[in-house]
Each structure stands twice: as C-alpha cells, then as structure tokens.
C-alpha cells in the first residue's frame, strides 16, 4: 500500500531544485554576495593603499639625497626668525591699542609715537637678510638636483615602457642622465663655511639689535618684551646645534623602512603639489576629524540621550507620537543640504554670536572664520542625534518594567528611578548608541567638507577650548576633495587610500567596541 508520504513528495521542481532549496539558495546567495563584496572592497583598499609606504620611502630618500633635508635646517632657522618678527608685530598691535584706547591718542599720533618701535622692528627683521639670501640660493640648488633626478626617473620609466612593448631599439635610444648625488651636492654642502661666518654675524647682529629695545609704557608690554628677548636668546643659543647638524649631515644615510610609516602616522604636515617637498602626515587630518567628532558628540549626546529618556520615561503617548518621528525625520536631511545650511546660515549666526561683546569671555570668542570646527560640529551633531536617540531609546525600552515597578514601590520618585535604575540598567546600550553615533559622525563627509573650513594644519590647542573656533580639514574631507584630481597610482593617490584605510579601520573598531559592550554588559534578567 503506498503511504501518504510518498504522494506528498511530488513537488514542483525547477532546475532540479525544490521550492525550499531555491529559497535557501536565494537568501544564502544574498548573504554570500554581501560578504564577498565587503571582502573585495577591503582587499582593494589594502592593495591600493599599501603601495604608498614604498613610494613614500622613495619620496623621503630623494628628500635626503637631493640635499633638501640639509637646506631645510637653514630654512627652518629662517622660519623661526620670521615667527619672532611676527610676535614683534603682535606686540606693536598691543602697543597701538594701548595708545589709542587707554591714552586716547588719535591713530596718526599713535603711529607717530610708535616710530621708535617701528625702527626697532625694522632692524630686527632685517638682520635675517643675509641668511635669507643663502637659503634662497641653496633652495634653488637642491630643487635643481631633485628635478634632475626626477627627469632621470621619467627617462627610466619611458625606457621600461618601451621595453615592455617590445621596442628594444627605441628603448636603447632613450638617453638616461644618471645623477651622481655626491658630485651634485658638493657645491651645496660646500657653502658650510660661508654659512658659519654668516651665522656668527647674524647671531651677533641679532643680539645687538634685540637688546636695544625701545622703552615701553606699560608693565604688560614690558613683560612681553622681556619674554620676547628671552626667546631671541634661546633662538641664538640654538645656532651651534644647527651648525653641528649641518656638518654631520650625510646624504648617504639610508632611510629605514619604518620611517615612511612613522612619517605618515606622526607626520604633522599634509602638503601636496609643493615645489619643494610633499609631506603625507595624517596628524592634521586625524586631529581635525577627532576634534569635529568630539564637538559633535558633546552636543549630540546630551540631546540624543536626553530626548530618549524623555520620550521613553516621561512623555505621554501623544507627545511620543509627535517627538519620535520628528527626531527620526532629521536623518532624512541629505547631508549636503545640512552643509549648505551651515555655510549660509549657521556659520554666520555663530560668528555673529561670537562677536557679541558680552560673550568675549568664552574661549576662542570672538572669531572671524565662519567655517570652523564649531560650525561643522553643530551640524554633525544633528546627524548623530537620530542615531543616538533611536538606539538609546531602544536600550531604555529594554529595561524590564519590573525594575521600575520595584523602584517605585520602594518610594522612589520618577527622577530617582530614571537616574538610579533605568539609565544605569541601560548604560551599555546607551554607550553603544553613542559609539555608533560617533561612527556615523566620523565617516560623514559632505558636512565637514563644506563647513569645517578646510585648513590643513594641526589646530592650535594652546587656546584650550577655543580650539573649536579654528578651521580644520578632515580625513573624509581630504579624500573627497583631492581624490578627483590625483593621478591614479601616484603617491598622492595612494596616500589618500591609506587615509581611507585608517578611516575604515577606525569605523570598524568603533562598531566592534559598540557591539562588544552591548554583548558583554547586557543585563541578564533573572
């Protein structure tokens, strides 16, 4: 007798698959595709990025071999002098303000009174002239060597390509002017005695000029002048060290492999397409990204978590119906629109606020750069709020009602129950919400590109919290801005990929941390 099972087994088959198999294959296939795509992207990022370190080492090697490093010592010395001149100019400004505001002088009269000071400042700045002359000359020499070497490189590349195409006859015709760095550098290094004499004279003259400071009217100004003179003495005291460094410098000293790595990780400059030397240091970009994200979180965490607590614990049903979609709606704004808003409205408003006379006690206020960390941070906060709000609200929702009831039954007020039971019990969820908000913010591109001011420099932290009023550039911003115009395969192109890689690893770490926290500290409900 045939069993019922045998009858039921006659199912529809397609390509030898039953319906169940097809469904399994469909979903399994989708999962597989996502994993594979993710893997491919990661591999691509790594492949494009990793070549950077070799190229950067080459870049650093030329910097040394062509004598740029040597010349940089002298250029730096000159730059330090310029910084001193600048503080002198700052002092002049204070002097002028003092005269016009406290002594009620007219501008013309004040400027006249400053003639002595100007004379002093003029002499001070002129002392560097001979050194500047030498530095310019050396800069040209070093650049010439570097250019020569690059031309050789191009010739080699041309020949290699011809050979690859099998045109060996033509390849042999390509002339290659090998650069012998030792001979090329001889005249450059040969200037050392000249530099020594020049430097001694410069030091003598500078000390002499600096000492003849004009009398200043207020204690504050005198104080500043004394400090400036101390700086000058320190500066001059550093000259012998520069001379020994120049004397010891050797273009043959190899560039170790890790230097291209440290130059990237700890590099304080991101300088591209420069006539002198390109630097690929991630610090200014990292600092910018971190600073902007911190400001964003500082604003978004109280807002997002506060709103979540309110909606979950305090608001009535009708308020919930209104607030929840409202906040989640913010996420619907395209970030470019937010960025546009930041440029057109928020930046202006914040700057105007910073210039209110009553607010000058706030660190960093007043400021004149409309686009800066603060402007970008405020807008990024807006982007982070929905993420933080939604996830934190979920976490609060997961706190068992029983905890709340027990707390109320012991005579706790609503506020006490929130602060002592509900929030601590959902803290892991809230922390991971904040982390995911951070991940969202650090990867955001459009807003920072439009509103962070895009100045590539490590912000000046000496003004404390006022640092947030400075413009910065970010990792995401630089990729978006520069990727379009770089040559594929060039060091610059690869450097951008490494920045992308850092960003990717950072987001990965943040997400991983968020997940771990949730898993590790989730309250087990007994």
């Amino acid at each position, binding site marked *: 007798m045939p069993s019922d099972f045998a009858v039921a087994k006659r199912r529809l088959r397609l390509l030898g698959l039953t319906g169940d198999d097809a469904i399994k294959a469909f979903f399994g296939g989708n999962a597989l595709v996502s994993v594979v795509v993710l893997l491919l992207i990661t591999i691509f990022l790594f492949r494009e990025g990793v070549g950077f370190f070799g190229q950067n080492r080459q870049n650093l090697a030329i910097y040394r071999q062509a004598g740029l490093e040597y010349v940089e010592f002298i250029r730096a010395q000159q730059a330090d002098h310029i910084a001193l001149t600048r503080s002198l100019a700052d002092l002049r400004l204070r002097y002028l303000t003092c005269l016009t505001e406290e002594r009620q002088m007219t501008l013309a009269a004040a400027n006249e009174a400053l003639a002595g000071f100007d004379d002093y400042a003029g002499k001070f700045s002129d002392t560097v002239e001979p050194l500047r002359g030498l530095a310019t000359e050396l800069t040209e020499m070093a650049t010439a060597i570097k250019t020569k070497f690059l031309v050789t490189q191009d010739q080699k590349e041309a020949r290699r390509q011809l050979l690859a195409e099998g045109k060996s006859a033509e390849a042999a015709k390509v002339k290659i002017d090998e650069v012998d760095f030792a001979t090329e550098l001889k005249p450059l290094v040969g200037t050392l005695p000249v530099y020594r004499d020049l430097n001694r004279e410069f030091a003598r003259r500078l000390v002499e000029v600096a000492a003849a400071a004009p009398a200043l009217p207020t204690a504050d100004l005198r104080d500043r002048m004394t400090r400036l003179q101390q700086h000058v003495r320190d500066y001059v005291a550093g000259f012998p060290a520069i001379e020994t460094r120049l004397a010891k410098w050797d273009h043959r000293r190899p560039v170790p492999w890790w230097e291209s790595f440290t130059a990237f990780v700890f590099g304080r400059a991101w300088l591209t397409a420069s006539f002198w030397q390109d630097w690929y240091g991630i610090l200014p970009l990292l600092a910018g990204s971190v600073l902007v994200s911190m400001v964003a979180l500082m604003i978004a965490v109280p807002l997002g978590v506060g709103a979540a607590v309110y909606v979950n614990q305090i608001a009535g049903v009708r308020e919930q119906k209104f607030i929840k979609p409202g906040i989640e709606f913010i996420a619907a704004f395209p970030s470019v629109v937010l960025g546009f808003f930041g440029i057109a409205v928020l930046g202006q408003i914040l700057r105007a606020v910073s210039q209110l006379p009553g607010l000058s006690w706030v660190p960093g206020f007043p400021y004149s750069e409309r686009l800066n960390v603060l402007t970008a941070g405020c807008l990024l906060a807006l982007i982070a709020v929905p993420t933080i709000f939604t996830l934190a609200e979920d976490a609060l929702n997961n706190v068992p009602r029983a905890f709340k*009831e*027990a707390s*109320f039954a012991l005579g706790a007020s609503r506020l006490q129950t929130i602060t*002592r039971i509900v929030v601590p019990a959902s803290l892991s969820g809230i922390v991971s919400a904040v982390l995911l908000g951070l991940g969202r913010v650090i990867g955001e591109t459009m807003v920072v590109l439009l509103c962070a001011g895009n100045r590539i420099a490590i912000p000046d932290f000496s003004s404390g919290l006022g640092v947030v009023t400075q413009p910065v550039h970010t990792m995401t911003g630089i990729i978006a801005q520069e990727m379009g115009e770089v040559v594929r395969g060039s060091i610059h192109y690869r450097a951008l990929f490494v920045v992308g890689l850092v960003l990717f690893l950072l987001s990965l770490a943040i997400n991983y941390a968020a997940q771990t926290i949730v898993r590790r500290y989730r309250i087990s409900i*007994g």
Partner: protein
Amino acid sequence: MVSTLEPPVSALPGPRRADALIAIDHVDFYYGATQALHDITLGIEAKKVTAFIGPSGCGKSTLLRCLNRMNDLIDGTRVGRGTITIRGVDIHRPDVDVIELRKRIGMVFQKSNPFPKSIYENITYGLRLQGLKDKARLDEIVEKSLRGAALWEEVKDRLHTSGLGLSGGQQQRLCIARAIAVEPEVILMDEPCSALDPVATAKIEELIQELRARFTIVIVTHNMQQAARCSDQTAFFYLGRLIEYADTRDIFTKPANPQTEAYVSGRFG
C-alpha cells in the same frame, strides 16, 4: 443576586472597618473604560496576614496595587467610587504624598525583580532614597534585613556580588529583605511563590510566619494550602467582586457562600 452575596460590613468576621488598619470602602476601579473592581468593601487588620484568593483575572492584583497606588503608573486607570483609608487617612487625598505612602507600604512582586546591582545595593536602595548615608547604619540594616528575610547566612560572604546571581528563591527573599529594610507598616505580596519550587516556597511561608509579628501582610495566592497555612483572614474574589471575607479557618471549613465552597474545594477556578 450579587448584592445578596455581600453581607453588611458589620457582619464581617474580620475587624470592623472603623478599627481596621486599611479600610477599603465601596471601591470601584477602572482600567480605562473596563471596570475591574466592583464595590469592594473590606478591612485589613494590623499585624495579621490577609490572603486574597480567587480565579485568575478576578482582580486580586488590581486591588493589591490600589493599596500603594501602583496603579497610578498605568495610564488611564482610576478609582471610580469609594475610598481607601489607611489609619483613617484617605490615600487619594490630594495632600497625600504617594512617595511617602509607598515607603510605608512595601511590595513584593510575583516575579522576583532584584535590581541589576549588588545584593548590598539592592537592600540599601530604599534607604539611600531617603537620604541615609551613614555606612555603619547601612551595614547594620543590611544584616538585619537579610536576617529578617532568612537570607543572611547564604549571602553574607557575597554581599557585593550581583543580586541577579542568586537562585530564584533567594532572589525572592532578597526582594523581601529589600522591602523590609525601609521598615514599612504593610507588606503587599503578589503571588510571591508562584515561580518557586516547593522547598523555596516553604522557606518563604516560614518567613511570612516570622514577619507577621512585625508587619501587616497582604498576600495574593493561587495556592489554597498556602492561604490556609499562612493567613489569618481570607478574602475570596470572583469577577471583580468580593464574594466572601472571613477568618481563614471558616473560609476553608465552613464557607458561607456556595461559590467560595466550590472554589476552595477545587471544583472550579
């Protein structure tokens, strides 16, 4: 028909409402539009154990939660008619501080619900809310409460580990210790043993016998033996109405109402 089931208050075997610690007087209670309690009148005597019994959904928990106004936490609930007074004070009077009320009326829930904090912090929670900070005093109360809940010997070496690490029965005793730490007058227990095995249940019942000297206890239970063993008075509810309220012995041996008789003898419910 129902009204005939309801003897006049003066006829109740328990104390008269006038001298009861808690007097529930003609109370109607609503969840939104649905009425869950109909005209409940009963007095709960001080330093006695009063049991609420009745089939599921008859309103035992609802009435219990009215006593410390826990129902306030549910949107749309209200007492439609009648009053609940404790020591002659109407607990719904506008000048009554609900927080103060809940400090004086402790509660133990059906499902043990220690906070995700250490055992020590669980017990001191209510005290800290009241602003007590003195460490020595807190230590003393923790020990006293844990001893009071017959838990001290089992946990004295792990006071600072999580309360969630205890067994179900221990957790429930921790919740009792937490409730008695703030020295309430009344302890409300909503099926405190329903999730426990017989051994743990026996322990809690023993504990109730010890606690009755110091506290007024109201206990909701589905376990007839438990009600018979533990309580002095028993109230039987059915469909939101109080059917019979009498000395426990009488309810179980000579119930006045046929429905009560049917329920306690296990023929329905």
